[in-house]
């Protein structure tokens, strides 16, 4: 069974640009979660998608957005990139609440 896959593995962008990160959940998992792991800040909850809808978001500005497609894959968009957006972005999926997440390997975003 394929795990959670994220692409790209690494992404380098210039301040002010937009970044798009992609995530494919485990087959059968309808929930996708996005977390940011920035140096010194730990793992912070970003967004939760379930059945194509944004269900909740963490304490991040609106320039962090995303969507979930009918096949349950998801995209995270970060607009107007700032240097402090440099981080490892982790996607996780689950078949429902409180089943335990399965994480992908992450996308390393570097903003220069």
């Amino acid at each position: 069974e394929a795990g959670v896959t994220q692409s790209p593995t690494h992404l380098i962008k210039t301040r002010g640009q937009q970044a798009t990160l992609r995530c494919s959940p485990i087959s059968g998992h309808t929930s996708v979660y996005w977390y940011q792991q920035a140096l010194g800040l730990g793992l912070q909850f970003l967004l939760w998608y379930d059945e194509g809808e944004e269900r909740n978001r963490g304490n991040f500005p609106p320039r962090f957005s995303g969507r979930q497609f009918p096949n349950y894959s998801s995209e995270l968009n970060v607009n107007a990139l700032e240097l402090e957006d440099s981080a490892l972005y982790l996607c996780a999926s689950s078949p429902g609440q409180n089943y335990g997440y399965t994480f992908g390997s992450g996308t390393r975003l570097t903003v220069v």
Partner: protein
Amino acid sequence: AQSVTQPDIHITVSEGASLELRCNYSYGATPYLFWYVQSPGQGLQLLLKYFSGDTLVQGIKGFEAEFKRSQSSFNLRKPSVHWSDAAEYFCAVGEAYKYIFGTGTRLKVLA
């Protein structure tokens, strides 16, 4: 507010020695508790989880954890550490749809 504390930022043990990583949580109801491991540059791998029932939980790679409600703790243990266990370990409490993670404990294993 819910929170997770991992009091040890770094731990160093010798290969073959026993290991205990500490985790304390603050949560109003019965918590869902998790331990994850992260190797450098990688995502997080689930080691074990506690939802209910037996307070001693067995996980992968020979790890176990014990839920102690009276101490609000969920410490991770391994009787004999291998060099490949060197990584960062995260404790988390599940709060409905999201997890609250601790700040992690980095484990170094001496040969």
